[in-house]
């Protein structure tokens, strides 16, 4: 058996296990994960659509699309934080490339995200999104986001072994990111002079791309793809670098 096949088997098996455990503990397990974005959609529509009178048309579907894209990132990265710390025996007792542990946590999140998209699709259609051939671009968006998540997760999982309170910092970062990405407002509200920096955020690009596809009915700009690819590459380099430099000490830190 080749190494590559072994790695593939490990990732698939661990991801399957992780996925089962996330949802098995309660019968409502999977329903809860659907309820979460729906509840957010209702709350945010009430606050921003009704109280603050956002003039965005079709606000609920505008929100729900962004929430699904955001949730994949938020859940994917935060569950990876514990992938190493939560499985010390995988580090100390088995000989396998350690990034596979992070990767399988990410793959479990990918399964979850795909299921959420599929299950909430009827809701999106009910809320009036447009289904065109452009919907075929959604897998591209998801794959790109997956690579982004993997790069970030490598860094996070490694840092969380060294600093056990790193998850707190990441929680705050995610909350910040939620408002630094155009989820509850339109990116055009950002003042001109900050826009360049604002649009360097790959999550902004991914959310806008999903809206382009399903709400506005045109394909995402090439610059959207470019920013996401470049940002993912940079984050993969940084995250991978952090992971490589600290992975030698995992066994002793755990």
């Amino acid at each position, binding site marked *: 058996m080749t190494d590559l096949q072994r790695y593939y088997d490990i990732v698939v098996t661990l991801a399957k*296990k992780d996925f*089962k455990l996330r949802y098995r503990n309660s019968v409502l397990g999977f329903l809860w994960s659907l309820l979460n974005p729906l509840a957010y959609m209702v709350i945010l529509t009430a606050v921003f659509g009704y109280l603050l009178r956002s003039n965005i048309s079709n606000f609920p579907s505008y929100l729900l699309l962004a929430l699904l894209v955001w949730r994949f990132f938020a859940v994917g990265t935060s569950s990876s934080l514990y992938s190493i710390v939560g499985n010390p025996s*995988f580090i100390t007792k*088995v000989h396998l490339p350690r990034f596979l542990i992070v990767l399988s946590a990410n793959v479990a999140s990918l399964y979850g995200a795909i299921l959420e998209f599929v299950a909430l699709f009827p809701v999106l259609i009910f809320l009036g999104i447009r289904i065109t051939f452009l919907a075929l671009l959604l897998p591209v968006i998801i794959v790109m986001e997956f690579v982004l998540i993997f790069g970030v997760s490598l860094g996070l999982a490694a840092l969380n072994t060294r600093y056990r309170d790193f998850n707190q910092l990441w929680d705050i970062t995610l909350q910040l990111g939620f408002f630094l990405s155009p989820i509850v407002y339109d990116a055009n509200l950002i003042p001109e002079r900050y826009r360049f920096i604002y649009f360097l955020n790959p999550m902004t690009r991914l959310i806008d791309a999903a809206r382009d596809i399903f709400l506005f009915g045109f394909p995402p700009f090439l610059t959207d793809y470019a920013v996401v690819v470049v940002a993912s590459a940079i984050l993969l380099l940084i995250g991978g670098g952090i992971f490589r430099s600290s992975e030698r000490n995992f066994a002793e830190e755990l």
Partner: protein
Amino acid sequence: MAESSVHPSEISRRNYRLVSSSRADPSVGGGIISVVEVNDLWKRFRIPHERRGTILHSFAVLLSLHGQRRYNFEEFWALKEINFSLQHRESLGIIGPNGSGKTTLLSVMAETLRPDKGEVKTYGTIAPLLGLGIGFHPELTVKENAEVYGVLMGLTRKEVKARTGAILEFAGLMKFQDSKLMHLSSGMQIRLAFSIAIERNADIFLVDEALAVGDMEFTEKCLTRFRQLKQEGKSIVFVSHALPTIQSFCEKTLYLLHGQVRAYGPSSESINKYLADIKEGSLITSQIVPT
């Protein structure tokens, strides 16, 4: 159960320097062939005084004037100057009091720990039976756990699926295959883990205290299985406190004390040395177990 033939791709790509050509059939040629060579191996552990690093703590240390050094730890040599070799078809026992470095040595051989000095050369694939039951989850069924554990231990998913029946049969857990793992006794869980790990097709088996876990019937079953593996041309390293078993099963025994080789040779000699040390009471100071 496990096929005895070694697939060419299974032979370790790590160290070809010495015997790669003779590896195809080591029993030919009459010479003694080592499958594992441990040369002047040292392993150090650092025991940090501050158990868990946090960002806040790092800041506090940075800010304080008389800040202690950021990495404050004690050094502890778990293994010192270890030399030995394991031959093809040989069984080697490793004995010694708690905290003498037995498991550490196995972990370095299994490559889950890095040596600080010296090297371990291996020729062939290693199946470490360390940490039996890692990755087991009480909420999953026996079958599901078997799949996860089998894959972690180096079987392919196909192999695990094909052999699940045989594994459960050997473990005597056929009727529990769909119950959650938490409904099994801890002895049964270890039996399951052991039965899976032993299915691995490898040249060298590293066994840590596995014989002490099951009931007598299961221990006997395991020993039979190990004899069978030996006849198939496998090499086995046993860490155990069951001295009679070591004596009857292993040609050679390594006696570790304080992380050093106290005796290495025919099993009866090493074991006698150990027993003599116990009688003299010279082992009492050996408990350098980090807390």
